[in-house]
């Protein structure tokens, strides 16, 4: 028995080494940096130890802006994208003809190059000296006033960012949900039909509980993904996100490390820990909720 245990550790060693070097060590390091005031990675020096870094970023208007942006993004995109993906998946699985075509169409964003997508969104939303963008053309056509979605008011920029995020994450969710729906044994539906169950009740009492593990998975990964959003904002608004008021927490961390005003690993680490705490809290809440509503 003892011998077997030693062997087990030997087999685990490669994985453990990688985890230790690339996960555990950096994690501990970030925690340490976040309480070292004015840490300098070149000279490996710092002034003192304390909560100053946290106090700084929590009073930094750029961080608060990034926090606000991230929270709005999460609160809007996660429920909307999951909900819409569910509707589309249910629709997809209830049609016979052209189903494969639609499935392909919905999956296209997943395999499309990000730059190409950026270009499309530019054509849709960007105001240039030559054109106001396709969306503005539509708005003007219906008698509305053109809005500058890329350099204009905050709500317009936020709308574009949310729209973009939802559109980008949708294909994966649709893929997961259609396969989850397809894996529900049709006998359940037959049984429900024989019992005269109304369609809505079939959906809420049978379909939803049956696919609840998948929905839960999508919500959790959706939350985490949205909290980590950064590249989408860059693709839409360029690298100077602070000026555009469109920064996210991850963007803020990046700026603090490498940006034009960067070189502050302590602030970056503190921001990273704050983000970690938020994600952890949200995930725990998710887990608590799921215990009552997810059926494995």
């Amino acid at each position, binding site marked *: 028995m003892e011998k077997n245990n030693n062997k087990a550790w030997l087999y685990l060693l490669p994985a453990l080494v990688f985890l230790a070097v690339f996960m555990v060590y950096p994690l501990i390091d970030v925690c340490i940096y976040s309480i070292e005031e004015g840490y300098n990675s070149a000279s490996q020096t710092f002034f003192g130890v304390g909560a100053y870094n946290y106090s700084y970023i929590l009073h930094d208007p750029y961080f608060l802006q990034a926090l606000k942006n991230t929270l709005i993004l999460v609160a809007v995109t996660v429920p909307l994208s999951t909900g819409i993906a569910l509707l589309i998946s249910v629709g997809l699985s209830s049609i016979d003809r052209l189903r494969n075509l639609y499935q392909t169409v919905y999956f296209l964003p997943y395999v499309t190059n990000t730059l190409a997508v950026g270009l499309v969104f530019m054509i849709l939303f960007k105001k240039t000296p030559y054109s106001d963008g396709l969306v503005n053309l539509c708005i003007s056509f219906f008698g509305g006033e053109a809005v500058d979605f890329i350099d204009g008011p905050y709500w317009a920029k936020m709308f574009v960012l949310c729209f973009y995020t939802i559109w980008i994450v949708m294909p994966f969710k649709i893929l997961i949900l259609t396969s989850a729906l397809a894996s529900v*044994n049709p*006998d*359940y539906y*037959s*049984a*429900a*039909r*024989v*019992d*005269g*169950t*109304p369609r809505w*009740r079939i959906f809420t*009492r*049978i379909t939803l*509980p*049956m696919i*609840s593990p998948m929905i839960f998975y999508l919500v959790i990964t959706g939350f985490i993904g949205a909290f980590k959003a950064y590249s989408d904002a860059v693709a839409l608004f360029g690298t100077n996100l602070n000026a555009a008021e469109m920064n996210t927490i991850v963007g803020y961390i990046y700026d603090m490390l490498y940006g034009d005003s960067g070189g502050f690993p302590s602030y970056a680490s503190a921001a990273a820990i704050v983000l970690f705490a938020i994600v952890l809290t949200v995930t725990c809440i998710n887990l608590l909720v799921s215990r009552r509503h997810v*059926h494995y």
Partner: protein
Amino acid sequence: MKVVLKHLTKKFPSRNKKSHEEVVAVRDFDFEIPDGELIGLLGPSGCGKSTTLNLISGLQKPTEGRILFGDEDVTDLPPEKRGVGLVFQNYALYPHLTVLQNILFPLENLRGAERMSKDEMKKKAYEIARLVQIDSLMDRHPNEMSGGQQQRVAIARALVKRPRVLLLDEPLSNLDARLRLQTREEIRRIQRETGITTVFVTHDQDEAMSISDRIVVMKDGVLQQIGRPQEVYDDPANLFVAKFLGTPPISVFSGRVQDGVLCVGRDAVLRVRGVGDREVVVGVRPEGYVLREGGPLCCRLVRVEVMGRDISVVSAHDAAQSETIRSIISAENIASVHGAEVGFGLKPAKTYLFDPETGERILFEAL
């Protein structure tokens, strides 16, 4: 509730897209199920018995023909308006609901005047749970129960709305051998107590014979024979039915009738009247053999299996269509089975003649 099927036919479009031939799952079914009886739909897999069940339940629409419950034509009614209870082969219990919630589910679907109060529903659920003896398990989830218990829950769920007809699709196939015996008695008891006309599908002839009031034998979508189990066993309409029913199976020989004598190979075994000279297929039930020294049917002895009350003599005959034939004789005769050869006489009532081409039964009179 009497169930009448009139010229029922169900065709499916072929799965093979190139050929537009239709697959006929059920062909021109015509029979009547008397009120309150337990009917076993019996046949090998793919013979259309489950399709027949789905047609009765309304989950599938017949291509032609009518279905009547009593005097009411239900052919165009959706399943929920027919008043049927259906038990699926895999039970289809909702895994996220408790037993009580599963049984309540059909009641909660009722609307309007049929809608009951919460307490009434619960009372009904417990009433039916007591009938199938699962009232002590009401708070469990289906995955916390044995197969037999799940089966009972499925039956309770199907019965709770007091259906006019109860349909069971292969109700015992997911249970182990011991539980199967127990559960089939259970189904019989529940059916007797409720008096609901019940149709169940099975490929196991033993199962169908043991609990059905009547069995319906099917093959390739065509009805072969209907009747009380013993009648069908004793008086099979054709070779298929004769072969399908009975364990051990009937033994089949090629033979011929010549001048009023039935010959199996070179052995003249019976004198028959009413059959002209012709080739025939001879079927003999295992209990139709009489062990007799110098008996007309002369077989090579392969082995003897002792089963206590009876012995089973396994032997071979050149005219037999299977490698060995099996006969069941009383254990008292065990002493006379010895040597390389064994002679049998045939009981005329357990010997059947069939047409070699069509498999249809040829009736004869024994002398």
